[in-house]
């Protein structure tokens, strides 16, 4: 592994996002200025923070979008104040046409012309997390207290709902659109086979499940609820139902960040600074382990190259090239 460069933000790195072309990296700390860096860690732009805390940033119309505890979304040349209360994250639809911001019981949706008419307001529960359907840009999953709902933009009611009564913290939609997964406070994982309308509940995690990631070909789902990362097979008619998952150890504390590369490599980071890069082959895995100086809080693979951005609890961001 080769260190391409490092840079430092003012605080614990909350989120990392590469621009769709991979030329720029957006690094969002828990508070303070949000940084845009190049592939070698050179700072290209410094964006203002959002008061007491920043939310997770995104790219929209080839420009960074930030949000936070001040209830504001900042896009290029404008500030969007869609409602009241803090905004924890913004995400762009896979086709780049819509930007969504979660705020209390609303999912505000902005199109490229600046219209907000597709927004979902006065929902039954607060939007804890949401995910665009990677295979259909006009569908979005919303997770919150009580489960998850699936929406088609423009419709007034969800087209599917998964009520299990607990509390979801994270939601992920597989790239092929078949699976929906939630990481839960309870601590457990719920997986839904959407075409079969078949739910699965996986328990036995040591702590709440705050990170999950699908592989780019939708063949695997990685979940982190302890120092052991569990990777579920998502292929075949039944997916993980009845299958034996792969258990990846090697972390020294609870895994905090997970990301699959476009080539199927899985990166895992823990609070003690352990970085694992996992290669899968025929149901087995190979593990490359490195010990970094500070706890790892965010990971993001470059969209097309073998470059991994690593965000640390101390605010450092490192760019590693895998040889």
């Amino acid at each position, binding site marked *: 592994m080769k260190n391409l460069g490092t840079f430092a933000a*003012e*605080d*614990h790195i*909350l989120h990392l996002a590469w621009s769709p072309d991979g030329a720029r990296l957006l690094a969002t700390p*828990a*508070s303070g200025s949000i940084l845009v860096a190049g592939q070698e860690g050179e700072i290209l732009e410094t964006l203002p923070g959002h*008061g*007491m*805390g920043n939310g997770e940033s995104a790219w929209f119309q080839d420009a960074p979008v930030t949000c936070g*505890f001040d*209830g504001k979304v900042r896009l290029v040349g404008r500030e969007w104040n869609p409602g*009241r*209360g*803090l905004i*924890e994250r913004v995400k762009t639809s896979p086709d780049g046409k819509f930007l969504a911001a979660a705020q*209390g*019981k609303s999912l505000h949706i902005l199109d490229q012309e600046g219209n907000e008419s597709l927004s979902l307001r006065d929902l039954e*529960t*607060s939007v*804890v997390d949401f995910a665009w359907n990677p295979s259909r840009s006009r569908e979005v999953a919303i997770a*919150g*207290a*009580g489960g998850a709902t699936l929406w088609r933009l423009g419709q007034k009611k969800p087209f599917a709902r998964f009520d299990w*009564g*607990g*509390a979801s*913290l994270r939601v992920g939609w597989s790239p092929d659109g078949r699976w929906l997964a939630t990481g839960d*406070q*309870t601590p457990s994982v719920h997986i839904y086979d959407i075409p079969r309308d078949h739910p699965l509940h996986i328990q036995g995690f040591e*702590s*709440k499940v705050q990170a999950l990631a699908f592989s780019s070909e939708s063949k695997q789902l990685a979940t982190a609820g302890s120092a052991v990362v569990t990777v579920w097979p998502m292929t075949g008619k039944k997916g993980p139902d009845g299958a034996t998952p792969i258990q990846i150890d090697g972390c020294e504390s609870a895994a905090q960040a997970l990301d699959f590369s476009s080539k199927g490599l899985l990166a895992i980071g823990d609070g003690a600074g352990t970085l694992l890069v996992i290669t899968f082959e025929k149901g087995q895995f190979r593990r490359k382990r490195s010990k970094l100086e500070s706890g790892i*809080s965010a990971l993001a693979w470059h969209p097309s190259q073998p470059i991994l951005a690593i965000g640390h*609890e*101390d*605010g450092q961001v490192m760019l590693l090239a895998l040889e």
Partner: protein
Amino acid sequence: MSRIPVTILTGFLGAGKTTLLNRILTEKHGLRIAVIENEFGEVGIDHELVVKTDEELFEMNNGCICCTVRGDLIRILGNLLKRRDKFDHILVETTGLADPGPVVQTFFVDEDIREKTFVNGVVTVVDAHHISRHMEDTHEAEEQIAFADVILLNKCDLVPTEKLDGLEKILREVNALATIHRTTRAEIDIAKVLEVGGFNLDRATELNPHFLEPDAHHHHHSDISSVGIEAEGDCDGKKLNDWISKLVQEQGQDIFRMKGVFAVKNQADRVVFQGVHMLIDAASGGPWAGRPRKNSLVFIGRKLDREALNKGFRACLA
């Protein structure tokens, strides 16, 4: 790493919570206080240290009230605790109609938050002019009083002194443990609001349940009350543990707060405990230091059976 103290501020809409918050945010007390505000009223507070959020209840265990926590708090606190530049104190304001239980329980149930913060106390602001009506019309007003470590009987300038005495008596019947301060425009030494230590077992001293004896001359309309028990002699640790476990399993939903200081057989130090619904914390309370070994226990809750509680506890004596 020292844990960050958290104060929970409750009170009906219009009682004076916002006035108190403004004081806390603007007075020179030298503390950096983050405020998590749930009340989206007409008079909102725009301040760099205020974050506004919608109350969001998470049922952790099929609707059990004792396992209901505040999801928005878990996430906001999670973010605040990641900051390098930590706050000295966190203040959580609930909505006027909120049950304080889930807010308090959040700090017991979530592992990360429990590790890095502690509830310093529940402060309830009461509108002296309207509280009688609020208590008649809603159960939330009484529950907010029942949970309190400190009660600010506010707007005292609007009520004659003799009526205030009566109000204070009613508040005491619901919650005999809380400290009551009479205020006008929420004017109070901020330390009396922030440095409460109501949930801090290290600061637990002797409880005084004497003033909890039922008042034969007053008819109590509410089904929320306080029951105090005091007994000399040592407890049997196992019997005590079994009794409290059974009690909270069977009546935990109706027990808002409980505190106790015990003399346990074969244990030289005091044993202190406190609980919220079914969640209980116990610890060594340090040496008796010359004070007589005795047991003091206070319950605040709904439909409490004074006789049964007394009988149950006395059966735990060694």
